């Protein structure tokens, strides 16, 4: 299943992947949900036109029970430029039912030598979501999803992933020191690769301070016991401060976390920033 996805982008093998697509398969990419062959194939063709036929340069698979995920990078022959994709998927080993494909569009802009505005113009119109206002506070007796609510994991892994989640949901910044190994390789879409958690912590603060009433919500988690890796599908809702205006937004995120002795040694924090800019008419936050 994973190879079919990679071969779509490296060889343009649409025929092979199409065999795994149901009439009712949905493929969400750039915050636009495509249904059925006609819409999904159009997304593939657009990606192939944009990426070209690149070479696989990095791959990480998280094989879970109900859900699986894959992160991969495709690079030019001289490896000067690359693009990264993360897919979180529901499948039964024969067919895909739902896929959420998150592309680092800031890297796409670099690959194509375009400005963020030029890439934004090329993206499909995101689904027009209606984000209802809600009480984001963690009241003493209110219930908010934690990792063990959505995925069974061994105790040690669960403790680490719960602390990781609390960094985002409850802003427990002191936990960075406890769960990241010193030289953890952390790749944040729009920021790039850093070793150690300092850049991630800075990014976390910047992001939360750019929003009022931010709230993090878990959607799904898959855990790969063989590779001690975890993929988390989640999102952040909040009032985004964009100049003089406040805009209610949702930021979908897929995080791929690799563990060693229950410490995080690698993390991919994948967000499609330019799709978010397009969907909510925002200025690019990291210019």
């Amino acid at each position, binding site marked *: 299943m994973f190879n079919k996805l990679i071969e779509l982008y490296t060889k343009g093998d649409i025929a092979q992947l199409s065999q795994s697509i149901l009439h*009712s398969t949905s493929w969400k990419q750039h915050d636009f949900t495509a249904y059925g062959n006609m819409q999904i194939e159009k997304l593939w063709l657009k990606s192939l036109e944009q990426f070209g036929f690149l070479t696989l340069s990095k791959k990480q698979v998280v094989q879970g029970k109900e859900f699986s995920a894959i992160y991969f990078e495709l690079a030019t022959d001289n490896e000067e430029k690359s693009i990264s994709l993360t897919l979180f998927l529901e499948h039964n080993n024969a067919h895909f*039912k739902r896929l959420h494909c998150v592309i680092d569009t800031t890297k796409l802009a670099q690959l194509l030598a375009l400005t963020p505005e030029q890439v934004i113009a090329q993206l499909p119109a995101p*689904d*027009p*979501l209606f984000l209802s206002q809600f009480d984001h506070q963690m009241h003493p007796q209110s219930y908010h999803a934690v990792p063990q*609510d959505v995925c069974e994991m061994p105790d040690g892994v669960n403790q680490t992933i719960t602390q990781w989640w609390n960094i985002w949901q409850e802003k427990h910044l002191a936990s960075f020191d406890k769960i990241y190994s010193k030289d953890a390789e952390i790749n944040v879409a729009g920021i790039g690769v850093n070793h150690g958690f300092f850049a991630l912590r800075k990014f976390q603060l910047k992001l939360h301070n750019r929003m009022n009433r931010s709230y993090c919500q878990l959607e*799904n988690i898959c855990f790969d016991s063989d590779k001690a890796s975890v993929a988390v599908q989640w999102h952040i809702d909040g009032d985004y401060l964009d100049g003089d205006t406040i805009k209610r937004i949702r930021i979908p995120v897929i995080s791929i976390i690799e563990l060693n002795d229950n410490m995080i040694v690698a993390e991919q924090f994948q967000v499609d920033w330019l799709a978010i800019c397009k969907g909510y008419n925002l200025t690019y936050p990291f210019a």
Partner: protein
Amino acid sequence: MSFKLNNKITKVHWQPLTKLLEPSGDKTQILPGFDGEFIDIVDYIIRITHRIWEQKNVGLCYQYYSDICPVYMLGGYSECVEQVVQNTLKTIAAFPDRSLIGENVIWKEEEDKTYYSSHLITSIMTNTGNSDFGLATNKTGRVTTIADCVCFENKIIKEWLVRDNSFLIAQLGLDLIDAAIHFAKLVPNDTFTTWYDEEFARVRQKEHRQIFNLTDENWTVETFVQSWAQTLFNQKQFSTLTGFYHVAAAHQWPGGRKSTGLAQISGTIIQWLAQCPDAKMTVDHVAVVGFDEETIDIALRWSVAGTYTPHDNRLNMIKGQRFFVLGCTHLRVRNKKVIKEVTVFDEISLYANIIRESGQTLPLLEQGV
């Protein structure tokens, strides 16, 4: 849970369309009076829908709908197969590439020997022709529909049809209130008006203060959905959401309302109910099938009635009018908690009915408030 999975009846979720259209299994339901080719009621619904809509055999409505077939929609009432044919043709002309992707069929064998089916459909369609929404936009949109049908001897004899039109027009770039103003100019027939009046009066009689305690001991599908309606929608006790929804439940409501988890779901329901703060809900039909060994799918048809209190300044002039919704919901339930909900109703028709009944002439967006 008080339900046994019947593995023999067609399940749509993982089936490729080719297999659904050419079922190879044995006949698993007797289906008296139905064509022999259909192996069960799900197969019947999936294949006739494909033939009529995706293969564009509109005339097959004569074969699969009874001559007199009441179809209840919030936007109007049609009574006979001729109207079904005409409406189908009109929609296909405005959206010629409309696909009907069957997501699920939840069914029930009724005591009167009819079959009740609740068909959840996702459609992708390009608006290349003029329609009730206005001039062609040439944009492609996605829309969720639930068709609740009573089937008897190879024909649909009654239907309740709900469509998430507000999400569709958002994708087409149209304004919800403008669309409702246009829809309000369509004059419904007398039968619709009578049905609307009677349904409104019926739902308003609901005793909303009665407490419905749901416990492990009294938990059945029926008590669960009745308690869901009474506790959340009639009594507005939102902290009890935890008794009904998983903490990471996925929740889809009309107009692009997509929520995950209790805080967001609570926000969606509160914001929606606030426009009708005296809302009363009745659950009018319940069907349940197994999804897998641990999970069941429940189909609800429900109604909400109350008094309209606008959020939108453009609608302030019609405050106090009757607010009535015909809605359908599909719930996926595991360990007695909803893990996924899809609720569908037609928001354009909801506001159109209120505007029409008010007798007010409202300005379009471009005309200013």
